[in-house]
């Protein structure tokens, strides 16, 4: 029986990009359903009644919500090929910790740096740079966050890659200059087809960020 997989997603979403990367890494065919999260369609409300957000992964009619939970689900269901999480419980816990750090700490300043102005933006930039530094230190001289293999944490962070240029532009900093190891790591990740196909055009994202800035009153 063919697996029925669909993904409700929105083209600029860093979270949806993660799930797209994971599905591509596993070679899973799926139906992509462009879903504007500002317009709560009946399908979105039915599949994610609690948060009404994308991405929503639908497998055999059953929804899985929250991108990191989707990544783990994909890893467990399509376990035969290319594991995204290590099998050792301690290494797994470390991978989960860093993905959690990205969502708990990095996310907020990462949007405030382009989505706010004045003092709020200054504070967001300071915090964002601190978190980039932490992530650069954690990467160190490794090829990927998990070591030699592209995995969970790499996907969690590369989801944000399309937004890096917007962060740099509005935050007035350069990842290449300030975080060279991270910069090299992005280039390595960008050699992967799963990543290239999942990301959005950085310039389109900047245009979109401008539109959102106006909406949020930051422009």
């Amino acid at each position, binding site marked *: 029986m063919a697996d029925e997989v669909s993904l409700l997603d929105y083209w600029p979403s860093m979270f949806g990009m993660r799930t797209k990367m994971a599905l591509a890494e596993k070679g899973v065919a799926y139906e992509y359903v462009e879903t504007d999260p500002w317009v709560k369609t009946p399908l979105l409300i039915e599949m994610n009644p*609690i948060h009404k957000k994308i991405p929503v992964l639908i*497998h055999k009619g*059953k929804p*899985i*919500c*929250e991108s990191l*939970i*989707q990544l*783990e*689900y994909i890893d*467990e*269901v399509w376990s035969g090929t290319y594991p995204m999480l290590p099998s050792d*419980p*301690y290494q*797994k*816990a470390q991978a*989960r*910790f860093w993905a*959690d*750090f990205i969502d708990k700490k990095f996310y907020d300043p990462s949007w405030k740096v382009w989505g706010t102005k004045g003092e709020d933006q200054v504070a967001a930039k300071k915090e964002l740079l601190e978190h980039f530094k*932490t992530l650069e230190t954690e990467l160190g001289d490794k090829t990927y966050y998990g070591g030699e293999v592209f995995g969970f944490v790499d996907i969690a962070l590369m989801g944000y890659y399309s937004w890096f240029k917007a962060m740099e532009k509005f935050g007035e900093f350069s990842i290449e200059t300030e975080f060279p190891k991270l910069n090299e790591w992005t280039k390595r990740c960008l050699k992967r087809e799963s990543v290239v196909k999942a990301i959005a055009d950085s310039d389109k994202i900047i245009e979109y960020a401008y539109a959102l800035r106006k909406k949020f009153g930051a422009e």
Partner: protein
Amino acid sequence: MADEVILLSYWPSMFGMRAMIALEEKNIKFDYREQDLFNKSQILIETNPVHKKIPVLIHNGKPICESLIVVEYIDETWPGENQLLPSDPYQRAQAKFWADYIDKKVNGPTRLIWAGKGEEIEAGKKEFIEVLKTLETELGDKTYFGGETFGFVDIAFIGFYSWFDAYEKLASFSIEAECPKVIAWAKRCLKRESVAKSLPDSDKVTKYIPELKKRLGIE
């Protein structure tokens, strides 16, 4: 070789309680080390340099941080007894979704209740009741959130029960009147030794809050 298991925690923390409950469910002997969060110890700073928060589980010298990650680690490392997460990937994803919901939605409003002033308390109470009602709907007529067996979501939420008396007193309402199934569920959980051992007395929590507010500089 005997396992060395240390838990850095703080007695009123509902997050610390999660780790304790999981260890007790698995009958793991551990060394509990009470932490003073206002005077952070060397071991806390060394084992959790990124967040400097409890709980930290230290297993044979290696630290694991973030309470839900700790619970998963415990379940994976000691798989024999009392499985905390379901084996089926979809059920696991659902359990993680609800634990994540609790993490995202409970802390905000409950903090407004115990640490807020005036209108904030009322706002916190309203939001908390909505969240409780959502959880009550999800629980339904099941014995536990996962069904017949005590597990991940129960562990994620039950620690907050030790603060319920405080919330009720501070915001003048009855949780039982609003969500009787939640209270019935909590009482079932408290019959488990792991939970009874890990939750502090509600009275102790209620009496502690003014002191906590002073130490946090909130008045």
